[in-house]
């Protein structure tokens, strides 16, 4: 009896010791869905842009940065400094419905009330260039570094335009490749959730590409302004990024 008591006590002490200093952790998935007029955006699928133009998209991607979860007490749990969200391969409805995801393990469990996120490459990182990074790093993409701007392309939206309704998208192109420190945007999105120990929570972001082109009561004239390829005139790049961050939300 005495031995049994001592064994139980030792076990309890051992368990107590091993659990000491071990934080309870779980996994957070950031899921991003691109939409067009509320429906999943499928690459190469035609969409009505306005009353006269149809478009399809071949690329929609962007950097996210300084992503953190905000605890109930206001303290932050950082998830990533920089990452890349890419919808370019979403050429089927099933893929578009699934969206683009990235997982972060070892996130302290507990109650959270919001998510902070930046769209683009923060100033400090934007002073680096793609050749500074090893293959596989999000910032190693040479297709997303603009030498002459000394900036990354923060968000890249490409597509083609059918202006005469003949079903051939050879009447123009969309090249909204937005970069430079001036177009960096960030926001805090309220999102109440609890991450259980060893559990998984999903943060379901969404952004509507059509809304990124909103201008006044309609949409940016993409025939007159098909590209944001001039750093000395950021009007349309800033408009696009303003719209993007405005529309960027969590699907509660």
């Amino acid at each position: 009896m005495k031995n049994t008591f001592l064994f139980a006590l030792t076990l309890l002490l051992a368990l107590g010791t091993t659990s000491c200093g071990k934080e309870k952790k779980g996994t957070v998935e950031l899921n991003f869905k691109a939409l067009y007029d509320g429906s999943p955006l499928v690459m190469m699928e035609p969409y009505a842009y306005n009353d006269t133009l149809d478009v399809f998209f071949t690329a929609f991607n962007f950097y996210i940065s300084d992503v953190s979860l905000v605890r109930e007490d206001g303290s932050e749990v950082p998830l990533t400094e920089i990452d890349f969200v890419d919808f370019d391969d979403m050429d089927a409805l099933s893929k578009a419905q699934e969206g683009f995801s990235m997982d972060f393990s070892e996130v302290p469990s507990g109650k959270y009330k919001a998510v902070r996120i930046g769209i683009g490459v923060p100033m400090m990182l934007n002073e680096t260039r793609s050749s500074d990074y090893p293959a596989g790093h999000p910032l190693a993409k040479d297709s997303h570094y603009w030498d002459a701007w000394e900036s990354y392309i923060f968000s890249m939206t490409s597509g083609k335009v059918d202006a005469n309704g003949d079903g051939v998208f050879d009447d123009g192109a969309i090249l909204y490749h937005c970069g430079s420190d001036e177009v960096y945007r960030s926001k805090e999105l309220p999102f109440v959730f609890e991450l259980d120990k060893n559990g998984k929570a999903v943060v379901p972001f969404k952004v509507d590409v059509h809304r990124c082109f909103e201008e006044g009561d309609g949409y940016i004239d993409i025939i007159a302004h098909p590209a944001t390829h001039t750093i000395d005139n950021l009007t349309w790049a800033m408009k696009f990024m303003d719209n993007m961050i405005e529309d960027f939300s969590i699907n509660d």
Partner: protein
Amino acid sequence: MKQKSFLLLGALGLLALIVFAPSCKPEPQPPDVKGDLEDIPYDPQPYELQIPQGFPPMDIPADNPMTVEGIELGRFLFYDSLLSLDYTVSCASCHLQAGGFTDNKAVSDGVMGLQGTRSAMAVMNLGFVTAGLFWDGRAATLEDQALQPVENPVEMANTWEVVEERLRQHPDYPAMFRKAFGISDSKEITRDLVVKAIAQFERTMITANSKFDRKFLYNDPTVEFTDSEYRGFEMFFDFPGSALPDAQCFHCHNAPLFGNNDFFNNGIEEVTTLNDFPDPGRGAITGKTFDNGKFRAPTLRNLVFTAPYMHDGRFETLEEVIDQYSDHVHFADNLDENLSFPLNLSESQKQDLLNFLYTLTDSSIILDERFSNPF
């Protein structure tokens, strides 16, 4: 009583073991097998690759660290026609040093006069390529790439079994493999080691000593661009504030490598549908119709040595290439959007662009002894 009997039996058994054990015949042992290369010292010297200033880090596979001996072996193999069926074609047959490591043919010649369907790509700075080699990106690494030409029926038309046997029987190669990879016996020479050695050699083939590099990467104050070269530079990179047109070049040919890790339809083919490309290129690898007609954006370094141009070598001169991009791009649904608007460059602007492209010439690589034929 019972216990005493057990003890007695045990003692007798032990005695029997002691008495008879030495007279037992030992089991015949196999003769001591010694590899035919074990007497050759194996002391590989690690090779420290010098990455030029402004270049990205090179991703070197953990299972193929670079050594002086491995690179030397790779150099011999690169230049050895032993790899081909009839001993007529080596890697260097299509990647000649004097041709900027191309063969200056529209499509390359294989054994017995057989011809391929694509132009040989320049073997320069390939160690920095991270998203698939060949025009269609079908090989993930330099090692994977080197595996393919040996058994390609219109290139070397050989089998790896034959190549391995030839190398095992060779008077010199077994010792070189021993020194590079520490094998004990010639029988251990495999295709895996062959391609590792070739890849090591190719990773050393770095070109970064052009006029552009000296001026912009190394900030050499003695290097001056002419006005024409500078105008070409502005158009190539689309400099802010420049009154010159954006020639849209850098999107696919960004510095410092002047290529990138993506695949594009650059509008050289006139097709009605995406199924009409005579060579589907990337589409044949991904199985996606939208990738048909897309090819890797190759480096523009040393263009002066590497004519003809494009995946099928259709353009003899750089003037033709610039004309094509300026005035003759063909629409397709998957045409790269950067090329959707005609450039309409003037003749002088085309010349400026050409003059800038010439600044990407690094003659030292075609004279560098380290990359020359060792035979």
